[in-house]
């Protein structure tokens, strides 16, 4: 599903941030991406999200080489991934329904299809009935679940989560992780960047550890 093949990333100012990183996530696999801050976690995520391009090496997502993707095709690649953020990145002036519907509106789904899918996604994360609320009226855990519903509503084959439990207490974090495991069961590949060691140890999934831009455990 996701393959890094000797990927390096060099910035003019800071030099190499990733050095020959190689790993392969199979479909339906969950992996934690971990490491100290500055180890290159966010660079890996940026490369996958096509916010950055690798200096060397190939990244293949769902059979497609990301280095050869033209700028105008980037949006279509991003639709294959659901992104989840530490700060949720919800639109505060839109209702829960509108936030979750955004990827479907962008992809050009019809009215009824949007309504059906948004409800299904909200049902999955346990927020059915809160469609009309605004994000600020929800707790942190609920807001993150809105973010997750938005990430999965388009049924992408891959989920990328950047410190999804960073702002949540251990109990809520475990809930979120259990949600991820449910998506895993239907074949979704999930990469979670996190430095929550205790959570990682509790969950018992594959761990990719970066150290100074190099993959030390995979």
């Amino acid at each position, binding site marked *: 599903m996701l393959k890094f093949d000797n990927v390096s990333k060099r910035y003019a100012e800071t030099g190499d941030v990733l050095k020959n990183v190689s790993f392969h996530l199979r479909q339906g696999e969950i992996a934690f991406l971990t490491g100290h801050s500055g180890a290159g976690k966010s660079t890996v995520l940026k490369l996958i999200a096509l916010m950055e391009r690798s200096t060397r090496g190939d990244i293949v997502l769902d059979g*497609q080489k990301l280095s050869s993707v033209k700028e105008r095709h980037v*949006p279509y690649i*991003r639709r294959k991934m659901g992104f989840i953020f530490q700060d949720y990145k*919800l639109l505060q002036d839109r209702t829960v329904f509108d936030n979750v519907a955004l*990827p479907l509106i962008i992809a*050009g789904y*019809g009215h009824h299809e949007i309504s059906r899918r948004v409800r299904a996604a909200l049902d999955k994360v346990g927020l059915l009935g809160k469609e009309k609320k605004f994000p600020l009226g929800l707790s942190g855990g609920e807001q993150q679940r809105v973010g997750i519903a938005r990430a999965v509503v*388009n049924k992408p084959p891959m989920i990328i989560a950047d410190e999804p439990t960073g702002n949540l207490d251990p109990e809520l974090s475990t809930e979120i992780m259990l949600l991820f495991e449910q998506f895993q069961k239907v074949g979704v590949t999930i990469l979670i960047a996190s430095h929550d060691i205790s959570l990682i140890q509790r969950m018992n999934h594959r761990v990719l550890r970066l150290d100074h831009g190099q993959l030390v455990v995979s």
Partner: protein
Amino acid sequence: MKQIDKYPHKAKVVKPDVRQTQKAGGNFSDRFKAYRDQHAQALFSSLGRLFSTPFTSTMTIGVLAIAISLASGFYLVVVNLQQLTAGLEASNQISLFLRDEISEAHANKYAEAIRKNPNVRDVKLITKQQAMAEFKGFSGFGDAIDVLEKNPLPIVIQVLPKDALVDKQGLTKLFEDFKQSTEVDFAQMDLAWVVRLQSIVSTARLGAILLSLLLGLAVFFIAGNTIRLEIHNRREEVIIAKLVGATNSFIQRPFLYTGFWIGFLSGVAAWFIVTFMMLILRQSVENISGLYEGAFHLLFFSYRETLILLITSTLLAVVGSWLVLHIQVKQLQPE
């Protein structure tokens, strides 16, 4: 759908699987409906957004409306002036001011003699009394004139030459003939000041065009800058939309509609501003027109001009917004 290989000599590259992800559920008609809905949604939500910030919107639209009304108002003034000279274009009238000692009977006889001239179409005699009555009515010197013992105004004969005599030489010859007559104190050809007036009007027209270009440019820049601020205020939204796979054109759409509304509403406001000012001017213009025997009536915007005004202001704002969007949306990238 079959993929066409554009470069048969090159090794086959794996093209991004755009089609699969572009196609959202349903058949063509469903997708078309969704596309139409997106436009309708952007159209009305951008209008709603303008109304939700009434203070800012009023200021922006106000500035644009003033710029547009300056340009279109000046245009309308020129159109009115043109109407003035257009009516005079055909008039190559000659006014003969007779000597003071010429009696009214003599003047009448002289007028009849002129009428027989094959080059003359019509002759009109204005007696001293008629001239005085007209002068009293419009000059505002009525009381002062009453003090005068003697009517100082001369008898005037207005000569309208034949239409055939439009060439300057024939006209000048006729004019010179009148000038030589013993009865005539002073002869004046109206054509000279018509030509002068026409050249003034055409200068004003050129001025109006230049002013319109400048103010059009102002509309373009103001609209662009408004949209730039709007993007800045909504950068979070733009970035989130990009992250969940929005294309640039999807992101630009609501902003473009905002530009559309700003331009359109400014055009409407400018129309009202100019029309209102013309209504204020109307009374005094009609008074002046009375002096010219009512030949002149104030012209307002015609349907066609109204349409052009609205389309131009809308188009300027949309193009200004589009240019800014084209640059800014590309630059805004998620971090």
